[in-house]
């Protein structure tokens, strides 16, 4: 059988924050640009565009990824959750809502640029390891830059949600 041939534009169909989406996209378009420019979901931020800053983190079939290091065409047939849907349309929704409350209370954000990605990244850790230590929290968040807070209040907020959820477990 002859292989399929390369294309420069393609139709994709995926789920974004629980809603079915179909679009025609250029294959060179990054997932984060698709989410922001095509769908208007500007809560996912574009920082470095080479995978260092972490600001573009989204959930891709249940696992966090860098949306600047994925192509929109690769999201065909997948389930994407961005910060806009993270507290409502996702299995980690309750954790994200708890994190949002703690970030607010502890002033764990100033400019807010890194915050959506911080919430998604922290939620992934808490879902798997609510008993995580401060060191584990810092390691897990090490791929997300914050240029305002100095991280202390972010780690405090994540730890507070960890303790609350670990305490709530039987």
């Amino acid at each position: 059988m002859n292989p399929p041939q390369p294309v420069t534009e393609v139709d994709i169909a995926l789920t974004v924050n629980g809603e079915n989406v179909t679009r025609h996209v250029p294959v060179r378009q990054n997932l984060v640009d698709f989410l922001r420019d095509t769908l208007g979901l500007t809560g996912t931020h574009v920082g470095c565009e080479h995978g260092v800053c972490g600001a573009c983190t989204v959930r891709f079939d249940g696992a966090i990824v860098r949306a600047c290091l994925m192509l929109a065409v690769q999201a065909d047939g997948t389930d994407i959750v961005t910060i806009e849907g993270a507290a409502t349309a996702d299995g980690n929704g309750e954790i994200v809502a708890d994190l949002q409350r703690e970030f607010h209370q502890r002033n764990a954000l100033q400019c807010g640029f890194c915050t959506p990605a911080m919430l998604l990244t922290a939620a992934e850790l808490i879902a798997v390891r609510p008993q995580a230590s401060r060191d584990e929290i810092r390691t897990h968040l090490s791929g997300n830059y914050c240029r305002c807070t100095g991280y202390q209040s972010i780690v405090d907020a994540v730890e507070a949600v960890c303790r609350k959820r670990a305490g709530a477990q039987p």
Partner: protein
Amino acid sequence: MKAPSFSYVRPESIAQAIDLINQYGDEARWLAGGQSLLAALNMRLAAPSVLIDLNSLPELGGISVHGDKLIIGAMTRHAEIECSPLVAQHAPLLSLAMPHVAHAAIRNRGTIGGSIAFADPAAEVPACCVALDAVFVVAGRGGERRVRARDFFLGLYDTALQAGEMLLAAEFSGVRPGERVAFRELARRHGDYAIAGLAARATVNGNALRDVDLAFFAVDTKPVLATHAVAILQQGTVTPERVQLAQQALAQDLAPQDDVHYSSAMRMQLARVLLARAVSDLLQAAGVQESR
């Protein structure tokens, strides 16, 4: 920046993928996890005209044991390797190294085959494969062949993969009786590129080390086995004096270059520090090891 223009294709079988790479030759690049390639495209450091996406080929993924061999498919993600009980049992060095590979979001996407084929000199996986004497399974139009990791890495981003070939899997030969492993890396921020790193294994008998393999990374254009240092470590019981001699012998094994961030002398000093720490890890750890 944004990636330059390219076209994209998603083959439905390994045979189709190999046909495509032979059809487009040097103009085409494999798209595995994309965690290095897409960054390079966004920075316009690479401009292939065709990307052949391997993510739709499940037969390239997965971790299995056949006889005494652990086999990891090329498209297996770092996160899966990090959590795999089979890897922890049969190639514990990889389990130790995985948390050092970039960050969680990147490990969810990046693949072992991508890391091997890209051959970044600062990458953890190639050094582990060299230390463990892994064998890579490579396929082309003429069929499959096997290449030892120790013959595979040729230089900066340069490997023994020929035009028109793809990496299918890495094979690891399991843990020898009495074998212990150690993994040490120094980086500015956890998950960043290593300034210097060391993947090590040895069989341990009391205070003596045998069958020692020390694979340093980020200190040269490819992983380097420190054979002179190993010869000294294996001469007798390991004492602080013997470790010092082995550290001195590293000067015959490694010749790090200066770069804009770190001098050759600094990298050499860090390599000596890593050697002492890894030897200590090997001698101490009887069970589960913690190398952070």
